[in-house]
């Protein structure tokens, strides 16, 4: 082992049926180092992490850890934990029905009786230290996703780890929470902990990381010191090609030029999810968006439009005609499509094949007694796999074995297949790689130029600024402003979100 | 049927007690027991206000009896038993009878205490459970009430009751096996279909046959299987023997239901059965429909499990009233075995349950 490194992985190989997920990957993590692991979806980041944490067993290769004179044997997450490797996954892997403290200490007992009081006190102390606004005895499911994520980090941090793996920890956090997390990461770095940071947010990589290792298609591209690798080069390394300027995706040629009638208009819309009644409209060929902090009610608004939550008030017009929408199927029949925020919970049907996932919504629209023939279904699936460049072994592959970005593309394909008039995309770019992000944004603009109305929600304001021509700003579950034209700047958005205008 | 609540149904299932005594042999259906228990829970509440058969201005000469029985819906056996008691203890026969039904011991004990307070002359009891009766029977004795057990015995001192009128399951088996031996076959290849293992009826009816098979070289068991009083299982067991091609000439089923299942298998395979045919069919319990099969000579034998204890009880009471000495405490009832060649229409009506 090299001096000063806490972890070395050498020539790691891992195959899944039909996929060579890792091919001879090396990875070195130094003491007190924050090391970004970068790559597109399917590049092998998650697999490498899972090999390291014992979720998967590697086929070949060695893992060396500081303080061990022979290769470490990691066969289970418990092994990894014992060796000082802690992980916070992208998806929350805690138990929502337990309390925060229980989640922090679960599976860590050494067989002794648990001292509940002590446990709660300890948990509260850690939470306070980290500035996490949660109480030890609170049930985890009562916390927001962001808080849950932070609890997961708190749990990992408390386990005296040498290697801390953060797999997309920031995708559910808003900026102040991200800052808190970064503060924490720097603290840990100062204490000599090696941190592996997996993320899609380039800004964050450059803000906090020391080194970058890039993977592509299961192979190592290289390891770089952060100062020596400018962003554009990083993106190029990840994609394996030079990237045309992302800023230029929106241009005047692909804007829809037709009548600008209201496709959808709602007045005083209200749902069970506890948002204040709001008015909303979208024109033909328009791309607009809801923005606001996490929990400001932006998702709840689009859910109300699609009737994903029970609508409790308000009127809706489609193309000028009043319609009564009470359930998702009504919305679908009126040409509304909705890609939900929580892909795993509300989007994919995990065990079903890519094909079945693609045709699902169109099939439901077509009717219970009119199933697509095998040939039709195959044709649709192949069409959208090709169109959206979905990386899958075949249309028969269960969607759950695809990477997050590809799953998202399948869901997108599902809704495009219904040929909607009005497409709602709630966080379509969350947790997916930069290449796909841009693809999706480009697609949105292309669809709009063809006359489709699109509502686009993203936590990344610059994404929204690039794609949307009008932004509805939310704060505390109510609409607080609307921005368009020259007001569409980062500063103005922030100002409106923060309520700085004080009018 | 009374309207039942969900809760009652759930309770009912919990109270569906395993049955001992003759009732068990009588395809004491769990469903029936469940129904019964459901009824009982309603009846339990009503136990306090036990139905009084006699008018309020009852004459002094009437003998007051309190009858505590299991629920009549428990099985065909119990239904017949209850009807028999109701027919016997009438005003015309000089009785004023009150009835209480329950499948639960504690409810029965409560009913017994009620009867003692009502100053009945005799307490007739078919106990749900064998234990727990000492103190209440002691109370009865102190109050000068004569206790007569029927159908089921209890774990209590013999001094506490006047008589116990029960069936003898071993004898039922012996009667049946003796009848079979009397058929004079050269070889007995018996398919033996047993009831729920361990029940009193099964033990008694199996014991006699086992002893005979062990003693006689010409008696063989082709198969000995429990069908758990279940006609469907019996059918499959016999079907299996038929499929195997092993010859047999006797079906000894420990209740009528199982005999019926066995016969269904025979019919399917065109194996003749009944009087003068290839296979002898034997059942127990004397269900009316079974006796009709006997009458039609489709079956050969049906052993009785006598539910008619009323006349025995009546005799005991009469003796006591006259001040005569009682003989043995335990009175074994006569139990017939019906032969298809001898059974009459009257027998079917009289003994069919």
């Amino acid at each position, binding site marked *: 082992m090299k001096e000063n490194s806490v972890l070395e992985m050498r020539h790691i190989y891992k195959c899944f049926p039909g996929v060579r997920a890792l091919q001879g990957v090396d990875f070195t993590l130094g003491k007190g180092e924050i090391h970004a692991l970068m790559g597109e979806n399917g590049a092998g980041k998650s697999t490498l992490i899972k090999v390291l944490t014992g979720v998967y067993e590697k*086929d070949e290769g060695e893992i060396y850890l500081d303080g061990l004179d022979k290769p470490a044997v990691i066969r289970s997450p418990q092994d990894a934990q014992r060796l000082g490797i802690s992980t916070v996954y992208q998806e929350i892997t805690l138990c929502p029905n337990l309390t925060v403290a229980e989640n922090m200490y679960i599976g860590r007992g050494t067989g002794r009786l648990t001292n509940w009081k002590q446990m709660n006190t300890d948990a509260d102390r850690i939470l306070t230290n980290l500035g996490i606004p949660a109480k030890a005895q609170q049930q985890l499911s009562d916390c927001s996703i962001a808080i849950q994520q932070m609890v997961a980090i708190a749990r990992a941090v408390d386990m005296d780890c040498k290697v801390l793996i953060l797999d997309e920890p920031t995708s559910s956090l808003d900026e102040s929470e991200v800052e808190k997390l970064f503060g924490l990461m720097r603290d840990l770095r100062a204490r000599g902990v090696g941190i592996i940071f997996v993320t899609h947010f380039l800004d964050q990589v450059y803000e906090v990381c020391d080194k970058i290792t890039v993977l592509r298609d299961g192979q190592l591209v290289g390891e770089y010191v952060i100062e020596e690798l400018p962003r554009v080069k990083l993106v190029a390394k990840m994609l394996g090609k030079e990237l045309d300027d992302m800023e230029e995706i929106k241009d005047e040629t692909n804007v829809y030029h037709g009548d600008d009638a209201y496709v959808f208009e709602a007045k005083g819309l209200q749902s069970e999810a506890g948002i204040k009644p709001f008015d909303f409209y979208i024109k033909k060929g328009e791309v607009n968006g809801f923005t606001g902090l996490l929990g400001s009610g932006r998702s709840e608004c689009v859910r109300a439009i699609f009737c994903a939550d029970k609508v409790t008030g308000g009127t809706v017009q489609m193309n000028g005609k009043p319609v009564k929408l009470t359930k998702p199927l009504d919305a679908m029949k009126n040409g509304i499509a909705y890609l939900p925020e929580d892909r795993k919970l509300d989007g994919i049907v995990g065990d079903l094949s890519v094909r079945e996932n693609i045709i699902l919504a169109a099939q439901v629209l077509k009717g219970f007694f009119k199933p697509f023939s095998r040939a039709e279904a195959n044709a649709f699936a192949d069409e959208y796999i090709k169109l959206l460049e979905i990386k899958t072994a075949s249309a028969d592959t269960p969607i759950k074995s695809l990477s997050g970005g590809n799953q998202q593309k399948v869901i997108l394909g599902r809704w495009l297949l219904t040929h909607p008039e009005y497409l709602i995309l709630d966080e379509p770019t969350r947790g997916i790689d930069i290449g796909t992000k841009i693809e999706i944004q480009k697609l949105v603009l292309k669809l709009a130029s063809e006359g489709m109305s699109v509502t686009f929600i993203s936590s990344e304001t610059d994404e929204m600024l690039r794609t949307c021509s009008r932004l509805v700003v939310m704060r505390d579950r109510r609409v607080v402003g609307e921005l368009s034209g020259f007001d569409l700047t980062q500063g103005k958005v922030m100002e409106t979100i923060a309520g700085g205008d004080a009018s | 049927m009374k309207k039942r609540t969900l809760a009652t149904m759930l309770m009912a299932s919990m109270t569906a007690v395993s049955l001992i005594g003759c009732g068990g042999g009588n395809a004491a259906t769990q469903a029936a027991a469940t129904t019964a228990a459901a009824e009982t829970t309603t009846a339990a509440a009503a136990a306090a206000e036990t139905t009084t058969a006699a008018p309020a201005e009852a004459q002094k000469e009437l003998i007051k009896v309190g009858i505590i029985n299991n629920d009549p819906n428990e099985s065909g056996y119990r239904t017949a038993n209850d009807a028999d008691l109701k027919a016997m203890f009438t005003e015309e026969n000089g009785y004023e009878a009150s009835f209480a039904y329950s499948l639960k011991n504690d409810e029965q004990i409560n009913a017994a205490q009620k009867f003692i307070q009502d100053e009945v002359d005799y307490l007739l009891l078919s106990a749900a459970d064998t234990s727990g009766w000492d103190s209440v029977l002691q109370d009865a004795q102190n109050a000068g009430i004569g206790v007569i057990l029927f159908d089921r015995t209890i774990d209590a001192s013999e001094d506490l009751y006047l008589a116990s009128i029960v069936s003898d399951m071993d004898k039922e088996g012996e009667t049946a096996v003796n009848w079979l031996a009397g058929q004079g076959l050269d070889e007995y290849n018996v398919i033996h279909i047993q009831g729920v293992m361990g029940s009193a009826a099964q033990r008694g009816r199996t014991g006699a046959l086992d002893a005979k098979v062990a003693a006689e070289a010409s008696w063989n068991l082709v198969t000995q299987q429990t069908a758990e009083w279940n006609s469907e299982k019996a059918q499959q067991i016999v079907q299996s023997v038929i499929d195997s091609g092993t010859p047999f000439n006797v079906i000894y089923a420990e209740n009528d239901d199982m005999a019926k299942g066995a016969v269904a298998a025979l019919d399917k395979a065109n194996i003749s059965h009944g009087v003068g045919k290839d296979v002898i069919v034997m059942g127990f319990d004397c269900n009316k429909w079974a006796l009709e099969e006997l009458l039609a000579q489709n079956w050969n034998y049906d052993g009785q499990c006598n539910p008619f204890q009323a006349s025995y009880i009546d005799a005991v009471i009469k003796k006591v009233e006259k001040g005569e000495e009682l003989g043995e405490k335990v009175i074994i009832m006569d139990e017939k075995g019906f032969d298809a060649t001898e059974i009459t229409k009257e027998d079917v009506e009289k003994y069919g349950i």
Partner: protein
Amino acid sequence: MTLKKHISVSKQIFIPIAALVLLAVFNLLVDPAFFKISLGHNSAGDPVLTGYLMTILDYGSEVAILAIGMTLVTAASGGQDISVGAAVAIAGSVILRILVGIGGDGSLRAPIFVGFLAACVVSMLFGAFNGMLVAVFKIQPMVATLILYTAGRSIAAWINNNELPIVTDKSFTYFGGFIPGIPIPTPFFLAVVCIVAALLALKFTNLGLYTQAVGINASSSRLNGINPVFIKWLSFVLLGLCVAVVGLIKTSRLSSINYSVIAKDIEMDAILAVALGGNALSGGKFNIMASIMGAYVIQFLTTTLYKFNVSSDALPAYKAVVVILLVVISSPTVKDKLIGLQKRMKQQKGGGQS
């Protein structure tokens, strides 16, 4: 792609087929006469085929029919209906009530199909009740159906006022026995009809897709316009239909009913059939044909055990052993171990060559 699909389907159905082959080979080695089928005549003088195999087809069909509905319920709700035995009792009781009635003399008062239709309606109503508890009130299926499991047989007894009606009409025996002139047991035909109906329904409607989608991810299904409540409810109603058919077969076999023992424990066999078919009992993807194969495997096992004179009260123990084996073999742990073993063997081979 079609080839791959073919393989993945056959993988699931492989379990029951392997079990079937295993049992068949065992019987072949021990006593080849097991496979003897002979043509005879029953007591009514009609030609009938007899032999162990026919017995398996005959009795296995009851569970096979129930397995169809149970597969759907399992897939949609991720739980099992444990009340089917009691529901069969109710269905049978309804048939007899309509055909003979209380205090009847055994002759038919109504055409048999009327009795059967009534049983269908009643069974589906009880299915709807179960389905409502599960789908609307979100009660665990086993808990929800525990109610009918407990009360069903009492209800069955109550329908006929606790009497045991006996049908004397010969034509009623056809459904659990033989139709004159056709030497194959009728239950098998009824099973075939049900299977074909189920397969047609799966082919010409989206029942399969919807059921699986709901079973895998109800929330996602709802957002795709499917009504998960309705689909779950529907699966229980369809199971009710299967129950009615089995009720007809069961009562026809003896031309009578015994409320406490009719179709006793059949729910366990039906669930076992679903499990044997390699279907996840936690719901989601399913394969109806595999479940049906599973049903016949269970009867094959039962008949084999009867043949070897295994005490019938010990049968559940043998079935339990089979279940344990199956569950263990199909568990992810064992699968991984097997795959690992395979890989290691390959590696060793490779190492030897180099």
